[in-house]
């Protein structure tokens, strides 16, 4: 049995997750998103990544992944955006498409500053 806090919303349900082979039983969640999170956390943990990217001309802007990204890919993404420059884009525009073939995009969230 594994104890887990759901990170889907600010309620932060404390869940108990029971893994029996492929079967996962979740309790303590107050909504179905908790069960989905618990299952993903066991099989393929993912996080939404937020950061800033630099334009190379002194400007930078805030970005996020449009869906949660598999945790093992996060350091690679962060290293890449730390080293590379990205042209200014409108909020909502895709900065990096289809990260490592996951279908997850990095999108701009705020104006370039």
């Amino acid at each position: 049995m594994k104890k887990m806090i759901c990170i889907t919303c600010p309620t932060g349900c404390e869940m108990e997750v029971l893994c029996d082979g492929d079967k996962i039983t979740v309790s303590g969640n107050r909504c179905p998103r908790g069960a989905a999170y618990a299952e993903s956390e066991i099989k393929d943990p993912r996080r939404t990544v937020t950061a800033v990217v630099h334009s190379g001309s002194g400007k930078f802007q805030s970005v996020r992944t449009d869906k949660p990204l598999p945790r093992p890919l996060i350091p690679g993404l962060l290293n890449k955006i730390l080293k590379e420059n990205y042209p200014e884009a409108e909020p909502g525009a895709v900065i990096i498409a289809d990260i490592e073939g996951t279908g997850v995009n990095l999108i701009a969230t705020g104006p370039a500053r």
Partner: protein
Amino acid sequence: MKQLNCDVAVIGAGGAGLSAAAAAAAAGKNVVVIDREESCGGVLCQCIHNGFGLRYFNEELTGPEYALRMERCARESGARIMLGETVGAVRRHSDNTLEATLFSAANGVSKLNAKAMVFATGCRERTRANIAVPGDRSAGVYTAGSAQKLMNLTGMLPGRRAVIVGSGDIGLIMARRCRWSGIEVAAVVEILPEPSGLPRNIAQCLRDFDIPLLLSHRCARIMGRNRVEAVEIENLITKERFTFQCDTVLFSVGLIPENELLKSMGVEMNPATGGPCVDGSCQCALPGVFAAGNSLHVHDLVDFASIEARRAGAAAAEYASSGKLPSADAEVSCSKTLKYAIPNKCVPGSACEFFFRPTVSCARAKLTASADGQEIAKKMCLSVRPAEMLTMKAEIPAGTAKVEFLLEECK
């Protein structure tokens, strides 16, 4: 000197102010929003992490996205937003209208006259000085929010290895932000026996990175001749002391509502919240003066601040039309298990939504509202903690003089 007139003036274009402006403008009023920054959103602009908007927009957004969305709501409702203008003073004329003195580099000094004003001025962070941490006055000591501003709005890093003092949400978010930017985080130190931030932030900002959370520990001293070199930490239970090598200390030790303007106007303040005393429409003890958001009381979520502000904006619009609001004759009080109940007064014979901050932690508690001794509403609250606000809606019977709230732990 430039003079501008409007029905409702909103001071502060953050998550609360923009929402108040949208509501007042939607009611058909001529609304002007003032902010000293060059862009809308207030602190949301530097909160580049996700977790905003689930309650207000039914969608998970980052701070900048929430700000853009709320700005659009305000503009589409017809509110006019004036940026780069600082409010220096507000005074009340004998005819009850309000006059704000504004100054800016672009327009110099100007006057804004309004029938009603909503103060949504946000809050400030408590600093090292507020909790009196002794030691050297080295460089590298920041509030968590100023480090966040440095990283997210100027693109600079505050240091290479940090210790975070206080486990408030901003500190937890900054622990992850540091790690994702290549800054080591030695530990988060919390003086209380339990964390101050949301459980989800403990999980996703500390546990994901194996950052130690030291409960019942305090920062006893900061050392470093020029730059911070180490901090001394004390275990409050064993009294044992040890040091962490670091070049950066971030303080996340609470927020103080920013109400200098309201105080200068002589508005009655509430010592429990640090904000003004208000009635159910967010109106202060001075008619036509409203407050909402973190300057009224510190919220856990911007969504709650925006929802509260919507009410303030709608009430300000009504006041601007009629010159008065229903009389809030019922006094609100609460048990010692609640730090405060907001509003402080409400209108008998109407529905009102209340916000509370508990002083206790327990798995289950019963929250009861009574009007002159008669129970009028109750609800069960799960995982009650001081870090999480409670809310309750209640119908206040006509003729009520006193509304009391009681929070009792259920064994």
